[in-house]
């Protein structure tokens, strides 16, 4: 219907964005009726989202004309931003930003590098940056989930952890059940995505490939490839971040730093 009113692609996009944002705000208003106030946070998040994605789109349009190595800088910038974003899920945990950035850099970075070297991801900026960003974004979400779960588990089990320490356990042993639970919980979305692929959802990448004329079977296989890479990147990120943060919540004398109210 909108095509009848907007001939210009940019105007059409703005109109579509406005309608989608209104749908989101409708949900916020429904929530408000039930006493849940998300208005401010949602509005700011949506404004940030549109500004950020348009800015990235504009940068991409410039980069697409540049040399291939520039995509490395763009992906590195994304990793740092992802580290800062997911560190917010680990409030009160010492060194959360560093841990998150290193974990995402190792998890997503190593998968991107390996897959690019093997030729699974094309080195063209138009391929490397979007696919790489998908890996980084999912690694960020997984990292946030892992840290958030680990934090709440530790805070809920301070007594058990300190009892283990008092019995002579290594700091790493005293929190090992919570490291394991955080790792498993953080990977649930990635596992569910793989499990429901094609049945519950057809991801955007595949839809885009189909729209750009790729063969449906190849588009489907490549979508699986991307989700498997996402799983690998997310799993590695979660593994590294839970191991790194585990060491950060103890002093050198194996005293638990993360305590309620501290």
């Amino acid at each position: 219907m909108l095509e009848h009113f907007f001939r210009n692609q940019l105007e059409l996009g703005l109109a579509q964005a406005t309608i989608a944002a209104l749908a989101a705000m409708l949900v916020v208003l429904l929530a408000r009726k039930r006493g849940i106030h998300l208005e401010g946070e949602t509005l700011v998040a949506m404004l940030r989202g549109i500004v950020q994605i348009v800015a990235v789109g504009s940068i991409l349009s410039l980069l697409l004309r540049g040399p291939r190595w520039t995509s490395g800088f763009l992906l590195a910038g994304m990793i740092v931003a992802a580290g800062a974003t997911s560190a917010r899920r680990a409030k009160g945990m010492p060194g959360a930003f560093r841990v998150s950035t290193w974990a995402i850099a190792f998890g997503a970075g190593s998968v991107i590098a390996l897959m690019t070297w093997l030729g699974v991801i094309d080195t063209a900026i138009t391929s490397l940056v979007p696919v790489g960003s998908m890996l980084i974004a999912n690694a960020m979400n997984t990292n946030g989930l892992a840290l958030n779960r680990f934090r709440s588990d530790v805070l809920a089990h301070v007594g058990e952890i300190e009892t283990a320490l008092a019995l002579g356990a290594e700091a790493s042993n005293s929190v090992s059940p919570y490291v394991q639970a955080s790792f498993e919980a953080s990977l649930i979305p990635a596992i569910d995505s793989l499990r429901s692929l094609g049945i519950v959802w057809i991801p955007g990448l595949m839809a885009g490939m189909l729209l750009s004329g790729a063969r449906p079977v190849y588009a489907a296989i490549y979508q699986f490839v991307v989700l498997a890479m996402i799983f690998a990147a997310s799993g590695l990120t979660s593994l590294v971040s839970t191991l790194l943060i585990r060491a950060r919540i103890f002093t050198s004398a194996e005293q638990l730093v993360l305590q309620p109210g501290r």
Partner: protein
Amino acid sequence: MSTRPTSDSVILRSEHLGRVVANKVLVEDANFEVQTGEVLAIVGPSGSGKSSLLRLLNRLDEPTSGTVYFQGSDYRQAAPRELRRKLGMVTQRPYLFPGTVEQNLRYGPLQRGEILSQDALEELLVRVGLKGYASRNVANLSGGEAQRVSVARTLANSPLVLLLDEPTSALDEESKLEVESLIQRIVRDQKLTAVIVTHDTAQAARLAQRALLLAAGRVVRSGPINEVLHA
């Protein structure tokens, strides 16, 4: 528990021990000694720093001033894990690990690669009055039974000093008396040194020979139990 300490040697000495967190004084300039084989009670009103002081003795928290000498050496020079094994702690709530009583008792020795023998396990259970409980799931224990398992689990590490943090305050009256007499028996039979934190002065009088009275993180009185409690 009215006998005098069997030895005069000092096993623990606190020198100017203190801890301040976010400008809040938890413990300030605590100076005292614990003789080998004696039971020392730390008494005082709620929030006076009793548990904070005990956590410093076990080095679960780091002193911000002063230190503790354990067997004559600054305890910061010892490996924290080995120190905590020797200064065994029993907390107010038992915090048993999910699983069986046996798994809980084996936990401490396992941390240093030792397997608690079946005989030692049975002996510990007899000692805390829980013979035949080895395969019981800890989720099905009463409060008093759980605290007994907690005591046995600490004893499985063969500590030289027992640090007891309000070990009966979370129990009903009957369980409280049972656990108290268990502690009394263990300390007496094994000639263990013990430091017990309690807000119950009658309990302190029953268990300890000497006491420290704390107020606002400071030791305001120390000496023989009756003098401290009835001054």
